[in-house]
């Protein structure tokens, strides 16, 4: 079972990944965007760990909802509302339960990912964070490690795609040949989840 602390630790691990990879994310965003994805997420996840430090919500749902709201309030850009919505909707779907099963979480996460799709109007193959999130969702119930692997592969698979959403779409064919920054950060998030579970989190 996954409790509030597991989700708190996930977000702290995600924040650490973002911190470590921020320059790379910005570099990727510089090729087909506006060179801020790393600093955007760093700002957001720093705020998330700060708020979770101050205030430790008791349920998985509350942790994710609070984190999502914090991302919305601090990131800005496209990724702020999108990642914020991902966590908030996932959190809301988890309801008020004190502990959730992996399956229950996978279901909620799928709802969160669907909300991202709805908000941004993107689908698979548009070269966005969804290209990492959607494949991860499919196998999340079975294995967090597989989900991490699927997200990573999904992110890498954005390289040959032409972007149809977000800033990279302005480039048309010139967006081909670059990995999408948002898909890359989404993979970091799912990898952090798997790592957290491996480090004795998930029951």
């Amino acid at each position, binding site marked *: 079972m996954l409790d509030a602390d597991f989700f708190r630790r996930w977000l702290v691990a995600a924040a650490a990944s973002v911190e470590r990879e921020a320059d790379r994310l910005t570099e990727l965003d510089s090729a087909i965007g506006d060179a801020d994805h790393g600093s955007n997420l760093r700002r957001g996840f720093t705020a998330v760990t700060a708020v979770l430090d101050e205030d430790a919500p008791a349920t998985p749902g509350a942790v994710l909802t609070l984190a999502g709201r914090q991302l919305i309030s601090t990131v*800005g850009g496209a*990724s702020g509302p*999108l990642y914020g919505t991902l966590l908030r909707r996932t959190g809301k779907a988890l309801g008020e339960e004190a502990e959730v099963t992996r399956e229950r979480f996978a279901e909620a996460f799928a709802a969160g990912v669907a909300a991202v799709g709805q908000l941004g109007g993107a689908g698979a193959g548009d070269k966005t964070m969804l290209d990492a999130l959607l494949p991860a969702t499919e196998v999340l119930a079975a294995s967090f490690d597989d989900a991490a692997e699927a997200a990573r592969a999904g992110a890498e698979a954005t390289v040959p795609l032409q972007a149809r959403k977000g800033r990279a779409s302005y480039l048309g064919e010139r967006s081909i040949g670059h990995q999408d920054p948002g898909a890359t950060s989404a993979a970091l998030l799912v990898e952090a989840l798997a790592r957290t579970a491996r480090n004795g989190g998930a029951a």
Partner: protein
Amino acid sequence: MKMLINVPETVVADALRGMAAAHPELTVDVENRVVVRADAPVAGKVGLVSGGGSGHEPLHAGFVGPGMLSAACAGEVFTSPVPDQMVRAATAVDSGAGVLFVVKNYTGDVLNFEMAAELAEDDGVQVAQVVVDDDVAVSDSTFTAGRRGTGATLFVEKIAGAAADEGAPLERVAAVARQVNGASRSFGVALSAVTTPAKGSPTFDLPAGELELGIGIHGEPGRERRPMMTSREIADFAVSAVLEDLRPAGPVIALVNGMGATPLLELYGFNAEVRRVLSERGVRVARSLVGNYVTSLDMAGCSVTLCQADEELLRLWDAPVETAALRWGR
């Protein structure tokens, strides 16, 4: 890349402190990054709120004041502000007549303003939105995020601001804003890439002897790279691109805008070429504005924006405006 800054993390807050010091006629909330007309809310008048990533100065905060914006929200460099800022701005300027959000068409701006509109409505503020999308370098299709909002933002903010100043109701102010956006098109060119404080190196490599055509204002590469062109050739290309999309039946308002690092001497010379092309194409320029208004930090380059203007839009354009960056009328 050398910059006149302390550390990248504080550039936006530092700039707002400097704005506050220079402009007593503005209320600058540095912590929340919201710039408001000191006399807001103005009784009975619709409030105009805009905002976006920083790095495009004087847009938007430089356009806050009588006859134009009521408030502006400053995001991080090239990053849309967050909904909290927009809600704060909306609440500060709403006199009960409602608030118009002027949103440049970027995924981030649209999503954040959208969320803010919902939250502000929850707080009892009536909100309308106009999304500015004038940049013809991006095709407006399902394969893109749609045309970017660039130079026309100034036209929308000025003209809708004049309508609000006259006491027009929210629907009318929004309708004017949409009319202006629908009648405006832009095209931009970069002679150099942009360097953001956070990244510290140019966002793309632009070799000597080449330029980017169809750039945006966020350091994105353009639609096409070409060997360097003359001012004359650039004007031909940019104006043609605009006129392919906008076939003005009547006179236009013309903005020749600098991206930040192009000297005014060059920009005025470019204006001469733009006017030449327009007159060759039979387009009459009723009003003209030349300067650095919608910039992209230290990028060298320029953009051309044309707005087909009827009598009413020209009247609103000529109406008094009193902001840090745009002032006229009496």
